[in-house]
Structure formats: C-alpha cells, structure tokens
C-alpha cells in the first residue's frame, strides 16, 4: 500500500508548526498505524532528517499514551480503538492521511505530535481516589457491592486517560474523562464519604485547566477508545449539583 501523509511538525512548544508532506510505500495492511510511522521514521533517520516525535508505550491499547488525530478524527477512523490499535487495513491504498496532535489549549504541544496531558493528573490529584491509607482496610468481603453497580463502575473505570475525548470535542471539554472517574467512585460504596468533595474539587480543577464546557455534542463518546458513556457526564452533573447545593 502507498499513502500520502500530511504530518504536523513542530520543533517545540514555542515554535510555529506546519503540515509536512510525506509519501510512504510498501505498507502492509496488517501493520499498525504506529508501525507505519516507525517505517517512515526509519526512512527519515536514514536520510539524516529528524524523525517524527509521537507518544506511545504499550501498543496494546491500554496505557493511553498514543494520541494522534488522524484524518480528522481522534485515534483515527477505527471505532473504539486507540491509535496503536488502528491497522492500515482501515485505509484505502493511495489515501491521503492527515496526522495532527490532540489539540486543546489545555494540552500544549511539546514537539510534533507529542502533547502535555498532565492536566489530567492534576485533576485526579484533586479527588480521583478514595482517601484510605495503606493498611487501614477492612476485609475485602465485609463490603458487598451490588454486582450491577460494580459492573457499571468498571465500565467507567476502563478509561485510559488518553484525552481523545478532549481532542474530539469541538469545545475541548474534558467532561467524559472527569466524569468517568467521578462516576466510578460514585457508584461504589467506597467512594461515598468523599463524593461531594470529589465532585466539586475535580470540576473546579478541570475548569482551572482551561478545558471547554460541555454542550452535549457527544463526539467524545463516539471517539472514546474505551466506549465510556455519556451517562457518566449526567451522573457527574448530578453529583456536582447535589454537592453544590449542600455545600456550606
């Protein structure tokens, strides 16, 4: 297979970036998208050019590190898959493929396709946990949890923190990510004691980081590689509303 690539190149955070054209040949349909970029980079290095910087680590769709906006979509055209789990068979021979970083003011670019998503960590640091010090726990089975709730919590907990929701959202909102964590802990009894604090503190931090506001467009849900549901955002809204109303 052969492809025309238009890749965003930007030397560092301050530099001006632009799309650069590359053509690449002899690509096998079974290659992953990142392996295709590997091949391209290999060519570049051999030609003495600077290879394209991109984030990736596990290449199994679980670490959430890979993050490309491909052909106008976060993680590319394949439904419910990360960039590393996107295979070239999803494209047609001869396609022109745009490759850009996840864009949002809250995700500043570090280089080329690499962005700084530490805003997510700072949001989690405000309440994405249960405050239980090591060694304080009671026996695990002393606290039965409704299986249905446990399953729903697991659905929400599956978020990999990749930021595709932000990248896909026309408003650069981070609601799907934040709501996934708030939901997980709101659904479990362990999260009960801190739920009000959690909702308010995490949402405040989210706003402070400069993410946009949700207008229920649903692009996040459609592009999320882990199929995190919009119901989580509704649950977060509820949590936040209740917490705000009783907040003293």
């Amino acid at each position, binding site marked *: 297979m052969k492809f025309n690539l*238009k890749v*965003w190149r930007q030397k560092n955070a301050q530099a001006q*970036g632009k*799309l650069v054209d590359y053509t690449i040949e002899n690509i096998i349909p079974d290659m992953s998208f990142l392996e295709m970029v590997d091949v391209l980079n290999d060519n570049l290095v051999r030609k003495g050019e600077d290879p394209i910087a991109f984030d990736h680590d596990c290449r199994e769709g679980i670490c959430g590190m890979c993050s490309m*906006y491909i*052909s*106008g*979509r976060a993680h590319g*055209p394949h439904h419910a898959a990360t960039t590393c789990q996107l295979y070239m068979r999803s494209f047609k021979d001869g396609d022109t493929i*745009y490759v*850009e970083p996840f*864009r*949002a*003011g*809250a995700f500043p670019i570090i280089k080329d396709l690499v962005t700084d998503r530490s805003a997510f960590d700072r949001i989690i640091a405000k309440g994405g946990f249960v405050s239980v010090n090591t060694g304080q726990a009671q026996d695990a089975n002393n606290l039965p949890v409704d299986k249905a709730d446990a399953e729903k919590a697991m659905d929400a907990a599956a978020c990999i923190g990749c930021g595709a929701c932000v990248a*896909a959202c*026309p*408003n*650069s*909102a981070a*609601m799907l990510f934040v709501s996934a964590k708030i939901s997980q802990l709101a659904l479990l009894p362990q999260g009960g004691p801190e739920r*009000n*604090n959690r909702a*308010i*503190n995490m*949402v*405040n931090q*989210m*706003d402070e980081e*400069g*993410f*946009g*506001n*949700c*207008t*229920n*467009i*649903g*692009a996040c849900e*459609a*592009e999320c590689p882990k199929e995190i549901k*919009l*119901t989580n*955002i*509704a*649950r*977060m*809204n*509820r*949590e*936040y*509303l209740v*917490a*705000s*109303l009783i*907040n*003293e």
Partner: protein
Amino acid sequence: MQNSVLITSSIGKKLIMGLTGLFLVFFLVVHASINGCIWFNDEGKTFLYYAHFMGTNFLVHIAEVGLFGGLILHMVDGLLLWKQNRDARPVKYAYSNPSANSKWYSRSMGLLGTLILFFLIVHLRNFWGPNRLNQITTGEELNLFQLMQEDFSNLWMVVFYVAACFSLFWHLLHGFKSAFQSLGLNNVKYNKAIEIAGTAFAIIVPLVFALMPISFYFNLVH
C-alpha cells in the same frame, strides 16, 4: 470542601442552559397552544380571548419578566459558552471530520440560537413591541389577529418565519434531550423516552409555528 461556583463553573453553566432551555421549551408550549387557536376559524375570537388574557393578566406580566430574564440568561450564557469553547482550542485542526462523530446541529447550537435571536427581534418588533407600546400609550390592545393577517400576506415574511422554524427545529432536536443530560437526568431506562419525546417536540412545535404564517398566506384561516 472548596467553594463551588454553581453559576460560573462549567457544570453550573450547563445547569443554567438546561434550566432556561426547558423554561423556554415550556414557554413554547404555551405560546403554540394559544396561537393555535387561530385555526378555530372564528376570526380569531378564541385566540384574541387568550391573547387578551396573556396581554393583561398581572401574573402573566410577571412571568413575562421571568421569560425575558430566562431568555437573556440563556443567550448570555450560551454565547459565553460559545466563546469560551472556541478559545479552549487556540490552534484549530488543519483537517477535521466531525460529521463522523456528531451531528452538525449539535455543534451549531450557538449559530442556531443566534438565528433564533434574529428572528425573535423581528418577531417581537412585529407583534409584541407594537402591542405593548399601544397598551402603554393608549391603554388599548392591538388586534393581533389582524396584525398577523397583514404581516403574513407578505411572502418574504412567511419565508422568514418558516426558516426560523427550521432553526428552532434543529435547536430543539439537540436541545430538548440535551437539557435533560445537563440536569443529570440521563438514565438508561428513560433515555429512549426522552429522545422520542424530544424529537417529537422538535418536529411538532416548530411545525405548528410554521403552519401559522403559511395558513394566513394561503387564507386558510379567517
């Protein structure tokens, strides 16, 4: 606990949008029901009866203030959202394919809302403004039925109204169920119902409104 800023926080703004949006939806129901009375074909008698009630009742006047307040809140908040959301991505994508993941009208609520706003200005100037002005200056109400007959004999005016109803249709197609989501009333069990109700509402109400100028234009009401 940190302070929550229910009004200005991202979620607070959503709540306001949802509440004011639903309030406006409720207003539309009232408005459409009263105006629908023109089809009694009694030369506007029933219609004028209710219009008179709405135009003179004290409580309705208070509600009217609330309505304008709500509308302004809805607009200000909506436009603020639109601006903030635009600024949240300072560098735009060079190439984007949003239709793959969302509906254009969901992404264009600001635009659709602004179109509705234009319409509202014209609409208020046509009916509500002159009527209130007359009430203040002469203490008399205008015959709104007649006013409609006059205005809607103009084809352009009819086209303008119908176009506005399309904006409203799309605004509501997204807005109705969106408001429930904003208020946290999204529940797998009821989502389908909300969705159906929303779609039905988005079709029926604008359709009812659109049929009014059309009916007048073709002299179907008298």
